[in-house]
């Protein structure tokens, strides 16, 4: 039996262990150096990482502009979080199920969502919720943390049929306060589901800093509550994220159950284009700091250049390619023609019941009348 003193000491020791265990894993440092060998990541993959990060960043900036021009609606930018999203998505298999939030379209695009579809989503178009046939990319989840359960359920079905596909849920630090976060991790633990819970801890839930979101120092340590593995990585380090997700994926596919990954990162911009971050944080200083000292794109470029995997010519060519792809996507989305209001009656049910048929006619008449 422990004395009170023993217990106090044990508690301190455990905290110390936990602090080390849940310290931020870093592979690629901000200066482009690596902390250890990285031969498990091929040069091709590294270049792919870089290309994607450049592409999604350009896409993101474009969308912010489109919103200012009134050509799309409120938009949630992810700039600063490219490594977490690109690195994680590249570690997946094509058939894996992805459950993103409103801020995770970088991950979605890497996993196969066409850029134009993403633009349509932010134009308030229902077409923006559809992914290419055969893909398993759910539309952005708006109610916080609810989709962690969907990922658990989809993983369950895969496990049930003995298929090696896994599911990944993306969510933020704020999401960890919702009851559904807890229920999802608990279900995944009990049934050892092949699911990856990827938290991008960008330090803020809109205006609320993580210190006020939870008394716990890290999110990774919450894994202890479910006796599942938890790991904390530098979320601006695409190698670290890629590795952590790859490992979690291997564990999951091997029947070893779920993993909670905390990727520590920062959004450079506003929560959404409707948000003003200067109200709640020293926006200029913080975003400058992260941009200059911890940027995910810069550090990978430094690494690639240093190892002769990328050069100025390639950069130039890729920037041009990116610009044209982004423009093409925007054009495609804008060319979609006016939204069809009557489509709101489609797909409420697999078969249309009488009252919807009637309301469809009612709207058709009203619109006909309006035009007449």
């Amino acid at each position: 039996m422990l004395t009170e003193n023993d217990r106090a000491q044990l508690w301190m020791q455990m905290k110390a262990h936990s602090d080390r265990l849940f310290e931020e894993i870093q592979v690629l440092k901000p200066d482009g150096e690596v902390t250890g060998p990285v031969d498990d990541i091929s040069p091709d993959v590294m270049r792919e990482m870089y290309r994607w990060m450049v592409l999604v960043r350009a896409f993101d900036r474009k969308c912010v502009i489109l919103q200012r021009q009134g050509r799309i609606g409120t938009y949630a930018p992810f700039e600063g979080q490219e490594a977490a999203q690109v690195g994680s998505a590249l570690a997946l298999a094509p058939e894996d199920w992805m459950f993103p939030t409103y801020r995770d379209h970088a991950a979605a695009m890497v996993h196969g969502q066409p850029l134009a579809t993403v633009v349509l989503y932010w134009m308030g178009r229902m077409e923006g919720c559809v992914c290419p046939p055969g893909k398993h990319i759910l539309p952005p989840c708006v109610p916080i943390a609810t989709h962690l359960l969907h990922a658990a359920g989809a993983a369950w079905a895969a496990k049930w049929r003995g298929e090696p596909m896994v599911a990944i849920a993306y969510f933020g630090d704020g999401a960890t306060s919702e009851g559904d976060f807890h229920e999802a991790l608990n279900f995944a633990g009990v049934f050892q589901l092949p699911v990856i819970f990827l938290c991008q801890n960008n330090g803020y839930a809109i205006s609320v800093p993580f210190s006020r979101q939870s008394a716990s120092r890290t999110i990774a340590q919450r894994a202890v509550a479910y006796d599942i593995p938890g790991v904390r990585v530098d979320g601006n380090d695409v190698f670290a994220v890629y590795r952590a997700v790859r490992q979690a994926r291997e564990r999951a596919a091997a029947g070893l159950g779920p993993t909670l990954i905390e990727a520590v990162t920062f959004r450079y911009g506003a929560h959404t284009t409707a948000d003003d971050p200067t109200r709640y944080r020293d926006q200029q200083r913080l975003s400058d700091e992260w941009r200059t000292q911890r940027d995910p794109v810069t550090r990978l470029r430094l690494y690639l250049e240093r190892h002769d995997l990328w050069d100025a010519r390639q950069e130039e060519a890729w920037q041009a390619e990116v610009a044209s792809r982004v423009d093409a996507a925007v054009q495609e989305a804008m060319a979609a023609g006016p939204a069809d209001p009557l489509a709101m009656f489609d797909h409420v049910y697999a078969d249309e019941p009488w009252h919807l048929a009637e309301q469809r006619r009612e709207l058709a008449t009203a619109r006909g009348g309006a035009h007449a």
Partner: protein
Amino acid sequence: MSRELTMLQAIQEALDLKLADDERVVLLGEDIGVNGGVFRATDGLLAKYGEKRVIDTPLAESGIIGTAIGMALNGMVPVAEIQFLAFIFPGLEQLLSHAARMRHRTRGQFGVPMVIRTPYGAGIRGPELHSESVEAFFAHTPGLKVVVPSSPYDAKGLLISAIEDPDPVVFLEPTRIYRAFREEVPGGLYRVPLGQAKVVREGEDLSIFAWGSMLRTALRAAEQIEQERGWRCEVIDLRTLYPLDRETIITSVQKTGRALVVHEAHKTAGLGAEIISLINDEALLYLRAPVKRIAGFDVPVPMFSVEDDYLPTEARIRQGIEETILF
């Protein structure tokens, strides 16, 4: 093969047959496995189909409904049991924000074929929050279907249809008549179609609309009033509460010119109001008297010592019939 079964047995049989018939079907919920459910609706199914098909979950309703959605997305047909209707409340977000909206927002790409079964209603001397009837919430949620059986035969046929339906169905099982009576129920798979009401008793003087456990109360009132007064009331079991079978409702009211709705949910903003509105829309000129609602009172469902007074009684229904016919 056709035997006399209780509603519970009929429900158990529907689950059994669908588990055997379709390997995508799984059951999940609290205490549904080794315990066979608190009402025994899943009795014996764990032993027969194993832990992969009949799943005891942790105590978390959002977890149950949320993972069921995920399963349904990925090719399964989950049939979730919520232990009592009020315990669906922690899972309402999953139901309202996701299950009901998934097909619509993904333009038909991802449907969520799933059933949520739950015992509901008062009248069994249950503890607090074991007696609610909030079917109106679900009937105000496009994308959901809402089904309530009132007999063993219908319970089985409707549940099979619900499980086979490509859309999420809230299947409300009136506890009060779970074991109250038996009825001939055929042995195999058969379907009672969703969306169709049933004329349970024909009549010319007044139309009574009811469902679940209130159906029998309404029927008895109709029989008594015929004996006492000679008035013949038509009694209609709505069976599917969303979408409603407007045609059957309107046809009856056009014939009788008078109507009464019985439900045990609170009166205000209950489903009775929607039925009155359908009649207002389609058959106002046929009405010889206001449509009467005999409903649960607008108080929190009280503890069981007075639940019989909370619930519509034959006496109140007869009184309502008299007032309507003598209006």
